[in-house]
């Protein structure tokens, strides 16, 4: 298993997952960097028999996001997961010019979810993992994961529809 190949294949997914979870691009960069540093350090200990590399890597990313919020709490900062800091209610002109309005609206829609739903939706749509893998990673039941995803997408769809985007 070549690390460069892993990096190229999974960086977008890991970054997207972090972006869904932590909000700002800079923080997502930080989480992604820590994830791949840890993956490189643990590459020798990775056992393919224990699970696919996708599950292993997103498991690391999930831990890094948890560490990120723990550090924030320790430093007395605001719990950003509950506040969509980087996502304003009005579209920025730069985003519109760059064609990023849809991205902004999607992130805004995800930000209305509770922490657990956001984690599961982020895992699902960033990694493409099966509900069984997500259930194994999060400790939830497989059918429960499916139900959480269904409800979350429904809620997000309502948010997008309210802005006339769907």
């Amino acid at each position: 298993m070549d690390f460069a190949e892993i990096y190229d294949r999974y960086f977008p997914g890991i970054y997207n997952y972090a972006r869904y979870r932590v909000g700002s691009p800079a923080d997502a960069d930080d989480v992604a960097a820590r994830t791949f540093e840890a993956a490189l350090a643990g590459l020798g200990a990775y056992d393919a028999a224990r699970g696919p590399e996708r599950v292993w890597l997103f498991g690391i990313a999930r831990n890094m996001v948890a560490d990120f919020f723990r550090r924030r709490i320790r430093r007395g900062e605001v719990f950003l997961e509950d506040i969509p800091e980087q996502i304003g209610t009005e579209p920025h002109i730069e985003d519109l010019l760059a064609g990023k309005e849809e991205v902004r609206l999607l992130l805004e829609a995800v930000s209305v979810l509770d922490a657990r739903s956001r984690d599961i939706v982020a895992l699902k749509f960033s990694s493409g993992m099966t509900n069984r893998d997500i259930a194994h990673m999060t400790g939830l039941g497989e059918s429960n994961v499916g139900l959480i995803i269904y409800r979350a997408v429904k809620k997000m769809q309502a948010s997008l529809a309210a802005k006339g985007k769907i």
Partner: protein
Amino acid sequence: MSEEEAAKKFNLELDGLFAGGKRPASGADPLMDAAEKLIRADFSGESEIRVLLRERLIAEKSGAGGFLEIIRSLRRNTWTQAALASACLLSLLLPVMRTERRNDIVALTPVTKTSPAVVKAGLPGKPGNKTAPAGNPAAAARAIAGPAVSDFFRSVPMGSLSGERLHNFPIETSAEQFPIVVAEGRRSDSPAGTEVRWETEHVVITLENRVISPEDLFERRSL
């Protein structure tokens, strides 16, 4: 249709989308529209570290991989394995060997008197003892610690220790006796103290007993 059934149907279609399949042509489904948007979304273009992080991590991996490759190549060679095993064994035993040698040296210190070290080592420390003759450290070392420690002590000719020949010392012998004559002991001119003089063939040695100050010995300078 209950919520559980709807969720099951939705997840089946979602997995089909992830697998690269097409959406069923059953009409507009706003939920699947939202899901498609989420699947297509890619924010990684916003990353400012992607390229630099890749270069750094791959450089780190190359360094670690090179080291690991050296270790692997060493492990393939039987002779190298034996040499590594010997080196490991030696490095483990070396502190023990040093400790034993240090104990031997400690045992040499009480040649003329009894000390705690001697008591601890269980060695006799009285002067005149046959196993530890006083005044002869080399013999004491041989007697107490055996031949292994005697290598530490070797007699060195006095000529190699002094820079000058002995006969240059001002006191010369005459008929196996030192011709030192005590001339007199008299009070000196200093405020307090006495002095004693020895007169030899060539020099006069004066031993003074008087109070001195640091300035008599050292030169005091100030900036």
